[in-house]
C-alpha cells in the first residue's frame, strides 16, 4: 500500500471483461527522496471505486485488499485499487511536493 498523487486517467475499449465499467486512474507514488515530482518512475494504474480527481492524493492497495475494495475476494483482472482519498498527511520533514497539489 502506498500514497500517491493522481496524475491522469486511462481509457481502453479493447480489454478483458472484468475491467468493463471500471475507472482507471494513473498514480505517481509520493517519494520521500525527491523535492520535485519524481522524473522517472513507473506510474501505477489503479481501479477507482471512490471517484478521485486528478491532483488528489490517494491511498492505493494491492492484491486481496484491492479486490475487497471492489466488494469481495472474487477474481478480478486488476491488482491495484484506490481505497482512500487523503485529506491530510502530517509528516514532519516530508518534501514540499507531498502537499503541493493537494
Amino acid at each position, binding site marked *: 500500500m502506498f500514497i500517491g*498523487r493522481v*496524475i*491522469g*486517467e*486511462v*481509457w*481502453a*475499449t*479493447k*480489454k*478483458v471483461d*472484468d*475491467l468493463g*465499467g471500471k475507472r*482507471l486512474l*494513473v498514480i*505517481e507514488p509520493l517519494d520521500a527522496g525527491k523535492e*520535485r*515530482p*519524481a*522524473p*522517472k*518512475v*513507473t*506510474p*501505477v*494504474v*489503479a481501479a477507482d471505486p471512490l471517484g478521485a*480527481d*486528478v*491532483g488528489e492524493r490517494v491511498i492505493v492497495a494491492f*492484491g486481496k485488499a484491492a479486490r475487497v475494495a471492489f466488494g469481495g475476494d472474487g*477474481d*478480478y*483482472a*486488476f*491488482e*491495484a485499487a484506490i481505497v482512500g482519498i487523503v485529506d491530510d498527511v502530517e509528516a514532519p520533514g516530508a518534501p514540499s511536493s507531498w502537499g*503541493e*497539489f493537494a
Partner: protein
Amino acid sequence: MLVGTVIGKVWSTQKEQSLEGLRFLMIRPWLSDGSESAEPIVAVDPIGADVGEKVLVVFGRAARHAIGRGQDIGFQTAVVGVVDELDVAKPARRPKGSSGPPKERARE
C-alpha cells in the same frame, strides 16, 4: 497495473506445459516523464494487442485470472487492455496551484 508499449513478440517452443498456445509480448513500461523503461517485461496477451500499441499490464493473481483458463498457470504477467487514450497532466510543467478537477468528459 502499469501502462507500457508493445515492442515485439516472443516465441518459445520448449516451455512449461500450462503455457501452451499463449501469445507472448515484449513490453516497455511507460515512465512518468513520457519516456520508456530500459527494462522490457514479457506478458501473456489474451486480447490481441499489436506492436506499437500502448497496453495495460497486470501482475500476479489478476494476470492468471485474465489469462483465463480457470486454473493455475505458470505465468504472472498479462495484458488486460489496449489503451485508447492516456490523459496525464505533465507534473513538471504544471505551475504550482494550477491543478483542479479534470474537465468534464462524456465517457462511460
